[in-house]
């Protein structure tokens, strides 16, 4: 039981990290960024390339190296997110929703098969594996890397929450989510804020990608597809456009999956997640925290 809770919490914090980017972008410009899961994949591959180029890393330094690589990868994926927005989404702002959605699918495709063309279609083994002691907490097997990764995820989320609630850019983001035109009239540089949103969302996804690579040890160019879908599910569960909702939704989805695969078998894990998505859209499309409209951003 505690094992399931812990597993759910761990997987859920990954989902939450990716769901944040989905939710932020959706909240601000009502765009469903299909390529978001692929930015996560991109992050994993950039981390892979950086770690490989650094050569042999002694095991004692692996955590420090990972943190540096994490930061650099976040910078690069963030920039990639900004480029995607500039080249593919901005020209279509105000276009029919169908065109924007199709563009997002195209971006996702280009990223996946672009990486496949560069890095090869076969799965790659990550150059470092996080290893650490395993100990028992209330009957659950907890490993040190899990704790470290969860702490990183939690720190990123707390920082993001502070940024959105307390800084002027965060306030600008929230006001654009409410009314983009009025924000423009109030002197907010809407384009700059949207660019920044994409940067932050993509950087978070990239961080999740590096962490997933280091933890699971295997990456491939389609790894972002399913997890992108699940992150969206998490965003919907929590109430899309809502930052705290995305975090909550990620954790809820993690628990649902952990218990679902325990009761029905692991091969149904993905079916379970999507069934929850369809159920939520039918019964409560605004999500758990969706009704707090003023909180939206």
């Amino acid at each position, binding site marked *: 039981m505690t094992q399931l809770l812990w597993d759910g919490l761990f997987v859920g914090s990954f989902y939450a990290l990716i769901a944040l980017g989905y939710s932020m972008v959706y909240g601000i410009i*009502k765009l*469903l960024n299909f390529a978001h899961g692929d930015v996560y994949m991109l992050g994993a591959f950039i981390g892979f390339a950086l770690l490989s180029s650094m050569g042999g890393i002694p095991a004692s330094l692996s955590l420090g190296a990972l943190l540096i690589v994490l930061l650099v990868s976040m910078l690069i994926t963030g920039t990639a997110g900004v480029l995607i927005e500039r*080249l*593919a989404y901005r*020209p*279509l702002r*105000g*276009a*029919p*929703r*169908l*065109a*924007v*959605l*199709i*563009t997002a*699918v*195209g*971006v*996702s*495709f*280009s*990223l*996946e*098969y*672009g990486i*496949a*063309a560069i890095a090869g279609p076969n799965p790659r083994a990550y150059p470092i594996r996080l290893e650490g002691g395993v100990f028992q907490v209330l009957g659950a097997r907890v490993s040190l890397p899990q704790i470290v990764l969860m702490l990183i995820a939690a720190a990123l989320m707390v920082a993001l929450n502070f940024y959105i609630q307390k800084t002027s850019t965060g306030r600008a983001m929230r006001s654009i989510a409410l009314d983009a035109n009025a924000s423009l009239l109030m002197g907010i540089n809407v384009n700059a804020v949207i660019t920044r949103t994409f940067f932050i969302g993509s950087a978070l996804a990239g961080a999740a990608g590096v962490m997933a690579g280091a933890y699971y040890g295997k990456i491939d160019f389609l790894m972002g*597809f*399913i997890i992108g*879908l699940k992150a*969206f*599910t998490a965003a*919907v569960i929590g109430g899309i456009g809502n930052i705290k909702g995305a975090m909550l939704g990620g954790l809820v989805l993690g628990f649902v999956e952990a218990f679902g695969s325990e009761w029905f078998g692991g*091969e*149904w894990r*993905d*079916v379970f997640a*999507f*069934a929850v*998505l*369809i159920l939520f*859209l*039918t019964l409560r*499309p605004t999500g758990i925290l969706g009704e707090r409209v003023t909180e939206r951003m």
Partner: protein
Amino acid sequence: MSENVDTTQAPLKIGPPRSRLSRLLESRQLGVVALGAACLAPFVTATPYALNVMTTAAIFVMLASGLNIVVGYCGLLDLGYIAFMAVGAYTAGIISKSFELPLIFTIPAVLVMTVLAGLIIGAPTLRLRSDYLAIVTLGFGEITRITANNLSITGGPSGIFGIPGLLKIGGLDVEEPAVLYYVTVLVVAGFVLASARLGKSRLGRAWRFVREDEDAAEAMGIHTYKVKLLAYIFGAIWGGLGGVLFAAHLSAVSPQSFIFLQSALVLMAVVLGGMGNMRGVVIGALVISLLPELLREFASNRYLAFGLLLVIVMVFRPQGFWPARGYERERATLEAGAAAVPTEKRR
């Protein structure tokens, strides 16, 4: 006559096509010519490989014409379209194998199952914003594939094989590749025509109205939910019957045939060809399915190329390479043939 003039754009005259090329492309005989070309193709090359490629392409055209109803006419993005083909192919395969029936007798069951699948997905989500439909269909596509992979009735990861042929009357066995090719081409041609006619029907006009402006359509008395659900169900039927053809062609069905990539390829055929324009969609489907066979060196990076092309087309030409013209003439001028109706509003 100003009731359907878009006041935000200068009205564009759609007269008879100007250039020789577009006159050729929009002539009424083009469909017949294309069908004739498809029927003559086996006389040019009839190796088993060529017949296989051409039959696959014909089935792909069927899928694209079905997705065109959903995406092109009604403007709903379906990212799990291949799931309907999976439902059709599996239903047909399971029934015909367990009852030793030719595939053609499974069609009623296939229709029931695909319509049910369409209702299950469409009914809850079509009331929501269209974004949600896109992602739910994506999830539905994955659910279908994973379920087929996990259940024992669908044969698990290896799928169903040894499916009986479409039909066998006396000496005429439809399993013969050349015969199957002709049957497929004729069936697909019929459905392409049906889809094109649907687009011009009263329902088709309602679909396009919903695509252009859902609120205005609702205000004009169109039951948008019902109309969207109908588009979705028609698309499902096309996909399901495409699945029957697929099962007849390969005589085997396995989950690997129904990955997201396939849905995306059908979508690309519709989008690149020109959403809503059945001729463009047919050409798009043929290009997407035949080009990798013709250009081997192109095959390795084709998905990257398709993805980039999708973005480029949407940014520079959001209506597709060859979009539908606004060719609904006003009743009074129908005989005169000189219509002056503005293009459909796209933005």
